[in-house]
């Protein structure tokens, strides 16, 4: 149904809100990546079957409910606590259930829905055994504040009706009723800074584009989220796609653009499909295309798919990719906001940045600026992953400390092991150690400490993570993602990676650490684009905070974390071993022998140092020892 006026949209919203109010319950089944892998799709089907069997009429996702419907079932985007899935949230009581299996659907329907009870043994539980009756009480959620992720995990992603019912496109209406300059001013006053990691003032970027003289202007959404360990943008694209369109439309109105692009990473086909449906639905409803809401505003959006190149997350490379060329960046001497796509002024912003825009326009700059820190207003989404107890997707006010994120929200280090480091900013970022845990997370504090906040990947590392291996990992990643145009990056990153590799293998020479540091500094200075310029960051920050570990690898050929396989063999501590037998089948080299309930032993000759035994051992009975290397 085409919404040909602002009034029509308001009426539609009114009708949808009333319709939703008539339903007694809403069941939100998380259909994020991890939950689906754990069986959420099958769970949703099972709930629908059980409801039908029990005579409970459901409305599913954004479908119009039948007259007898009393419950809405929504297959939502990521609800955040990824490793405890499949997640189910029941409203209005705000019950929050973890690990719900398809075969438990019958109980969910009869107890939680028909009997309106809370199923205690499915609720999240504290380390002391206390059950959390509502989601609001769960520490993982209690410390969070959702702005960019507000709709993710709540709305039915593919339903325009559901988005409207939740207040969607009210911000666009507001933007259409203000002078474009006021939109820019609002975003600037809000202090919104680029959430992709660059942190450039969004309002100022829009202002420069708006004032550049040109026949065409473009709005591009950067969905090329390439940092390994980051999936915030994926969650928003899959879980709340209409919000992105609304944010882009507001930007287009502000700068005078009529065409937008969403550049989606090749590895996110579900996001591409979903955004495609979203755009089609918007066009049909008159929310994209010519004469949006009858307000004399034309704007349309196209999807551009990436081809599997991390470098295309860099703005000039991304634009060349849209133009059908290889994704080779150009030297950033002319800003793309002035001469970008096809040489025209272009606003390129990250998915999360656009996701913040509707709320800012609706609730005002002061509201947004009241959260966060003076230099970094608002909130930031993070993917808290790695060796942390509660891995998942979160959003916190800027200024929350690393310690609060990792321990209060994340529940501390996995298996209670000692904290070692936290890596942020992906391959352009750095790592910080225990001494920096009380730093506030924002654009400036982490950078001052030699790291950077980045786009949101936050990787927690324990004592079984080797910083030399981590530095090598990032350089290896960048070596395969380098576009290859300039010498310092193409040749330099490969050489730096090689030096790190020799350190991992125990074949490094004295002086190699200083040679590596010098090379890293030169790569940072001389490279053509930001991929090369920031490539040395993970290595340089690791050396700053963990230099002794690098020296031990080079001089003593030891890896204290027990990760570098050429330097490590494993042995079983006879005092601690309980003979449970978990280690033997886990060993890919068949190096472990032992009778049931008897102490097991590892054949050092066969041991390849992979550490699988140590990972599965529940008694902390496996020790990493230095491998006897020849010519030691």
């Amino acid at each position, binding site marked *: 149904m085409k919404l040909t006026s602002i009034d029509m949209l308001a009426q539609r919203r009114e009708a949808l809100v009333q319709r939703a109010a008539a339903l007694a319950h809403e069941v939100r089944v998380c259909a994020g*990546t991890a939950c689906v892998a754990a069986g959420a799709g099958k769970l949703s089907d099972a709930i629908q079957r059980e409801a039908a069997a029990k005579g409970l009429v459901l409305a599913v996702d954004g479908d119009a409910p039948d007259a007898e419907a009393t419950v809405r079932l929504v297959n939502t985007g990521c609800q955040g606590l990824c490793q405890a899935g499949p997640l189910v949230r029941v409203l209005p009581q705000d019950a929050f259930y973890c690990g719900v299996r398809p075969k438990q659907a019958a109980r969910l329907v009869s107890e939680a829905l028909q009997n309106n009870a809370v199923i205690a043994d499915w609720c999240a539980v504290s380390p002391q055994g206390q059950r959390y009756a509502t989601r609001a009480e769960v520490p993982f959620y209690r410390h969070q504040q959702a702005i960019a992720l507000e709709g993710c995990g709540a709305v039915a992603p593919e339903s325009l009706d559901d988005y409207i019912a939740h207040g969607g496109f009210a911000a666009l209406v507001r933007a259409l009723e203000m002078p474009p300059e006021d939109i820019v001013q609002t975003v600037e006053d809000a202090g919104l800074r680029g959430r992709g990691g660059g942190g450039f003032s969004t309002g100022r970027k829009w202002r420069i584009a708006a004032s550049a003289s040109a026949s065409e202007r473009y709005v591009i959404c950067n969905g090329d989220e390439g940092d*390994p360990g980051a999936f915030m943008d994926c969650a928003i694209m899959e879980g709340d796609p209409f919000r992105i369109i609304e944010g882009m439309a507001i930007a287009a109105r502000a700068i005078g653009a009529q065409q937008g692009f969403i550049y989606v990473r090749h590895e996110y086909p579900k996001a591409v499909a979903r955004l495609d449906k979203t755009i089609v639905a918007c066009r049909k409803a008159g929310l994209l295309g010519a004469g949006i809401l009858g307000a004399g505003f034309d704007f349309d959006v196209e999807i551009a798919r990436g081809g599997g190149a991390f470098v295309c997350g860099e703005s000039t490379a991304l634009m060349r990719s849209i133009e059908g060329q290889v994704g080779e960046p150009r030297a950033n001497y002319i800003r793309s906001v002035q001469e970008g796509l096809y040489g025209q002024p272009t606003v390129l912003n990250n998915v999360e940045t656009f996701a913040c825009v509707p709320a800012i326009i609706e609730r005002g700059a002061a509201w947004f600026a009241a959260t966060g820190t003076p230099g970094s207003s608002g909130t930031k989404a993070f993917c808290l992953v790695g060796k942390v107890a509660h891995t998942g997707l979160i959003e916190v006010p800027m200024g929350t400390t690393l310690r609060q994120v990792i321990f209060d929200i994340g529940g501390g280090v996995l298996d209670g092991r000692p904290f070692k480091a936290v890596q942020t900013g*992906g391959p352009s970022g750095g790592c910080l150690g225990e001494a920096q845990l009380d730093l506030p997370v924002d654009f400036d504090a982490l950078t001052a400490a030699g790291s950077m906040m980045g786009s949101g990947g936050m990787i927690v590392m324990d004592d079984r993570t080797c910083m030399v291996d981590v530095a090598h990992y990032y350089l290896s990643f960048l070596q395969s993602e380098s576009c290859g145009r300039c010498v310092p990056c193409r040749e330099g990153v490969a050489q730096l990676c090689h030096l790190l590799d020799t350190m991992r293998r125990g074949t490094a020479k004295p002086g190699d650490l200083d040679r590596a540091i010098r090379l890293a500094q030169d790569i940072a200075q001389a490279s053509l684009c930001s991929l090369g310029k920031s490539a040395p960051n993970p290595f340089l920050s690791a050396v700053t905070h963990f230099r002794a570990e690098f020296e031990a690898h080079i001089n003593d050929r030891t890896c204290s974390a027990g990760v570098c396989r050429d330097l490590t063999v494993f042995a079983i501590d006879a005092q601690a071993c309980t003979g449970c037998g978990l280690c033997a089948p886990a060993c890919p080299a068949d190096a472990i022998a032992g009778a049931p309930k008897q102490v097991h032993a590892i054949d050092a000759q066969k041991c390849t140092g992979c550490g699988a035994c140590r990972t599965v051992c529940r008694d902390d009975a496996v020790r990493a020892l230095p491998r006897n290397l020849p010519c030691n």
Partner: protein
Amino acid sequence: MDAVPRALELNDIVAKYPSGEPRALLHLLQDIQTAQGYLSREAIGAAAQHLGVTETRAFQIATFYKAFHLRPRGRQTLRICTGTSCHIRGAMVLADEVHKTLGAGPGETTADGAFSIELVNCVGACALAPVLLVDGEMLGNVHPGTVARRLKRAGEAP
């Protein structure tokens, strides 16, 4: 993956795009690859001709973007995620084990044509690290000792 049905002829795929529009090159190549499993020399040439770009440019694009494969692939694609979370939870050990089990490593196809193996960048399922994907199916928390068993189960009908 929502995909163009595999049986479509090259011409049909190419014809979906307006002639003479260079900027559609990546999309067209992606569609061809989705349908045919890889990009043949013929396909790259046809795409180039239709869009009015040189074969030189089309080949350059096909080799720059890692999404494209220029050799025929196995019946199923096995992807090993090498995102940071997967890495520190043992992805490379997993890759070695896959290599041992299947007799082919990253970038290769098994001798029987069953699997093509790839190392891929982060797939966004970090909570389930380490992660393997068999075509679209995601296997989480895969330990090296269980690789053979889980691959066998994934290869079977759902």
